[in-house]
């Protein structure tokens, strides 16, 4: 195989582009695709501060690396989820990445700060582990991005992630979710702007990017996620992709171009009635937000031992932060007392 650009020896074939790339031009291709996504969807503007949600897996480390390579001002934030060795190993990769590059990594340990880990908390709250995990991460990512004064929250969702979620939402016609399955969700109603710069890359490409860049990441699958529906959708889509290269891209980007807008009104309706949670200040349509209900139910399930991650304390809730709105963002961020690993 020869590189489509320089005709040198290729290291990877990307069938959906009908192209092979050498190391140099594969990296260039990844940077170009991420830059194109950022520009096309107006994700991050010059001079903005971004916070990337870091798991220690390939996608979050790849997007952090790519954004730094593209010249953006990006800190990382990782959560100790308390999923045994899996979580402690994942945190190790995140810390090593940050330390080797002199980047700032914020950390919160869920058992230490909120009194539960994902396995015991999910059982206590009678939620699926992935549901409790996703809810906890979304809440903390939003809170730390806002309290830290960041302009934008970055996640490592790639084309496979988006296509799989779209597949699931379409399969079950969750129309209220379809209208907000976008690469950018603008800041509104107490939520930070959220962006997904990897939507133009598959996870085979983000994994290859990490290998080529020498980025060590958590290769093992989360033990709580094994066999879940989301992974099943990914396998199904890859079977389609095998015989029809480009199918995932066509499915997701076709949805964005031709269908997403049709569901926007329903997504707006779903957001109607948002108000600050009386307990934590996060936006919710319920009396008390889902995260606070999870903490209330799961908090008593605190494990005997922590995960070994840095123990830190989140600062004032958003309700308190709003009351202290006169405080400049930099001061408010420092007041949250979020520990940095580097």
């Amino acid at each position, binding site marked *: 195989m020869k590189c489509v650009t320089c005709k040198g020896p290729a290291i990877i074939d990307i069938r959906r582009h009908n192209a092979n790339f050498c190391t140099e031009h594969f990296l260039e291709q990844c940077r170009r695709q991420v830059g194109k996504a950022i520009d096309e969807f107006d994700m991050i503007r010059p001079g903005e501060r971004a916070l990337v949600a870091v798991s220690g897996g390939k996608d979050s480390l790849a997007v952090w690396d790519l954004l730094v390579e593209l010249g953006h001002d990006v800190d990382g934030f990782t959560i100790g989820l308390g999923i045994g060795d899996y979580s402690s190993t994942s945190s190790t990769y995140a810390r090593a990445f940050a330390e080797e590059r002199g980047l700032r990594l914020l950390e919160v340990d869920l058992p230490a700060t909120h009194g539960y880990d994902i396995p015991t908390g999910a059982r206590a709250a009678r939620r699926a582990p992935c549901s409790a995990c*996703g809810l906890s991460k979304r809440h903390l990512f939003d809170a730390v991005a806002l309290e830290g004064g960041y302009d934008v929250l970055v996640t490592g969702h790639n084309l496979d992630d988006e296509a799989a979620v779209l597949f699931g939402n379409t399969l079950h016609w969750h129309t209220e979710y379809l209208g907000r399955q976008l690469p950018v969700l603008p800041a509104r109603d107490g939520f930070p702007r959220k962006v997904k710069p990897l939507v133009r890359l598959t996870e*085979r490409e983000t994994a290859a990017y990490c*290998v080529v860049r020498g980025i060590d990441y958590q*290769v093992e699958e989360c033990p709580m996620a094994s066999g*879940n529906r989301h992974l099943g959708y990914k396998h199904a889509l890859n*079977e389609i992709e095998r015989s029809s290269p480009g199918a995932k891209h066509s499915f997701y980007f076709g949805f964005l171009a031709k269908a997403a807008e049709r569901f926007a009104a329903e997504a707006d309706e779903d957001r109607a009635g948002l108000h600050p949670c009386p307990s934590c200040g996060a936006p919710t349509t319920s009396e008390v937000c889902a995260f606070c209900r999870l903490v209330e139910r799961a908090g008593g399930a605190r494990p005997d031992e922590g995960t070994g991650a840095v123990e830190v304390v989140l600062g004032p809730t958003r309700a308190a932060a709003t009351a202290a709105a006169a405080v400049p963002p930099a001061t408010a961020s420092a007041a949250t007392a979020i520990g940095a690993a580097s």
Partner: protein
Amino acid sequence: MLLRNPRRELEVDGPITIVNLLARLDVNRESVLVIRGGELVAGDATLADDDEVEIRPVISGGAQ
């Protein structure tokens, strides 16, 4: 060769191309990378009898 998730080791007679190896193992090329000595191996590369490679799955993630 080393296969991940779940982790196991297999021996396959060479020479064999990556494409044929994955077909023999019924592994979808869209779902894995093949790595030899820390470097990616292209699909048309031929593995010798004594080559050691890792077949690394790339699919990950819980429900969002």
